[in-house]
């Protein structure tokens, strides 16, 4: 069904003066892509990956309010001896041109606030090595966010907030839980993203810093971060091929890792509509 949605989002109608479509005597071709609506396959310096991303805007009765919803489904990255996977991750941001807080005491009062409100949810994540070592199973992660960028689109994000998570460290050999870790909104979360108007270039940074309580050592420091820059270089049959550079700071062992890879999006939404070709 997801594939059907993505295929349905591919260009179909004809329209002129669309900067995302370039006319050509053999037919118009796209110059913009939507990196938030795609099925992607990754070939990295030390492994492979894949995932589905969807994002869409849901309107409200008030034209000044909209919901920006982003979903990542079945995201997997396998490297030599290690695997990272997320069953579902979602980000839900309520964008309003008028941020405010309401104090509902007596007659409700309204105070101005300069940010949007949102939340993140992640269910079923897995990090670990496949050679029998430990596996880190993220049962659930949630975060309440404020987005200071207040962008009316998906291209900019400057969000901070408080995150909660529940993780289980599983012994790879015995397949039993070695430790359980809980962060009851005790993590500060940062989420930055920038994306060019054409969608050809994008960059993101996510970080979590704070304390996590675990059954083996009690409270401990938790620092984790992921960053990635991606640039589309070519498109084959209107399917973009991009290069990306990523890095992460693993919270469990506080190690740094990086990778370079190629990303093919066999299914991707193209913004705008196809322009008429010269021959038409």
């Amino acid at each position: 069904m997801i594939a059907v949605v993505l295929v349905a989002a591919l260009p179909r109608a004809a329209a002129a003066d669309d900067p995302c479509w370039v006319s050509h005597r053999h037919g118009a071709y796209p110059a913009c892509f939507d990196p938030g609506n795609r099925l992607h396959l990754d070939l990295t310096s030390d492994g492979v990956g894949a995932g589905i991303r969807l994002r869409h805007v849901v309107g409200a009765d008030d034209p000044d309010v909209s919901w920006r919803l982003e979903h990542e489904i079945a995201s997997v990255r396998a490297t030599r001896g290690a695997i990272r996977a997320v069953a579902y991750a979602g980000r839900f941001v309520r964008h309003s041109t008028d941020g405010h807080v309401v104090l509902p005491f007596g007659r409700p009062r309204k105070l101005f606030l300069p940010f949007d409100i949102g939340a993140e949810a992640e269910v079923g994540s897995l990090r670990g090595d496949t050679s029998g070592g430990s596996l880190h199973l993220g049962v659930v992660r949630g975060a309440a966010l404020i987005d200071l960028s207040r962008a009316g689109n998906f291209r900019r994000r400057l969000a901070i907030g408080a995150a909660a998570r529940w993780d289980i460290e599983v012994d790879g050999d015995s397949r039993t839980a070695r430790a359980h870790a809980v962060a009851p909104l005790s993590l500060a979360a940062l989420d930055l993203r920038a994306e060019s108007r054409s969608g050809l270039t994008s960059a993101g940074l996510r970080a979590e810093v704070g304390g996590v309580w675990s059954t083996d050592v009690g409270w401990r420091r938790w620092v984790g971060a992921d960053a990635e820059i991606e640039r589309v270089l070519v498109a084959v049959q209107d399917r973009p091929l991009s290069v990306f550079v990523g890095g992460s700071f693993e919270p469990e062992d506080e190690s740094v890792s990086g990778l370079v890879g190629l990303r093919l999006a066999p299914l991707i939404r193209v913004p705008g509509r196809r322009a008429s070709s010269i021959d038409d």
Partner: protein
Amino acid sequence: MAGAAAVFLCCTAWPAPALADGAAMPSMDPSRPVLCIDAASPDGQRWRVQCDENSKTCLWSPDGEVDRSGVVKRDLERARSCTPAPASYLTERKTGGYQLVRALPDAPYGWERDERGRVYQVNFDLKRRLYLGAAWAPSRVAGETEAGRTTFDFGLLVWEHLRRSRSPTRHRLRLVEGEARLAPYSASLVLAHYDVSRHYDNPLVRITTFFGRPRRSDLTLHLGTWVEAGGLELHGEDQGNARLWKVATGHLTIDLWQSADLESYARARAGVGFEGASQDGLGDRSAVTPGGALESELTLDKRGFHHLGAEIEHERPRYIEGSEGTAERTRARVHYEVIVIALNDQPLSLRLSAGAEKRDDIPGLADRWALTAQAGLRFSLWAPPRAQ
């Protein structure tokens, strides 16, 4: 020219716009038409006007959000379109003896406006939301008090839908809902929950008695179903970590009392489930678990600010593999949630709960009553106004 004269008359005879105290101002009725009059004030402001023939009153407000000095800065949010009217409309009303009263612009159901015309939500449906919360959760077990215990709870999706008909039906869906507690550790999660309540218009059985004058008595049973799948409980014990997988549970429900919209109820439910349990060093076992509960959820006010719930549940796992015999689980809980603030119309609520639990299905857990309490905050996303 005539129009200009009308505007002059209107605006010299009627008060100029100024910021007033919102608490003292009436609000325009959102169910009645609103007129818009261009250049109705001396500074050319466009007004929204709503006149009432019975009270000989015209409510007016600037047709836009104003700053502290009363100058319109932007359009009204969530405002209905208004019907254009000439400036002479107000003059005619003045001649007819109408009183002009500064008012708050009309706002849709579930919303209000302040004196500057800014809109905000004052009615929340906490049965449609995703939430994340944290709480102080002390407990007392076998004479020992764990005063520093904390917890966080979450719900990826809480969604209820009322299908209105002669026999209205309310569907309740909850996905990925649970909580994790620390010091000492335990956690619970339910991947999917669905239950349905129905108010049957036709009685299940009608009994006619023929002692003297024939009389009819109706027996109405509001039956429903309650299903959970993918339940998980984790307990960190001195004897090793214990895991309880509630694969699937199905109950039949009887609503003992229902509110008109079925949002509030008191009901009994009973049924059976299948579960598997394991503990470090003790191996796996599985059980068929009959159980039942008495539970109630009440929404105490029309705006959806106050919610009260109570539950008494008993389960009796009957082991069919890996162990023999039966175990007992009994728990009771009462909880209250109240919205205390809203950030960008997304509610932050205070949640209080108290409960007791007694169980002997997990070796290492004290087979005594464990008393628990919680006091914390929940942040909810979505929570639109409740259905009218």
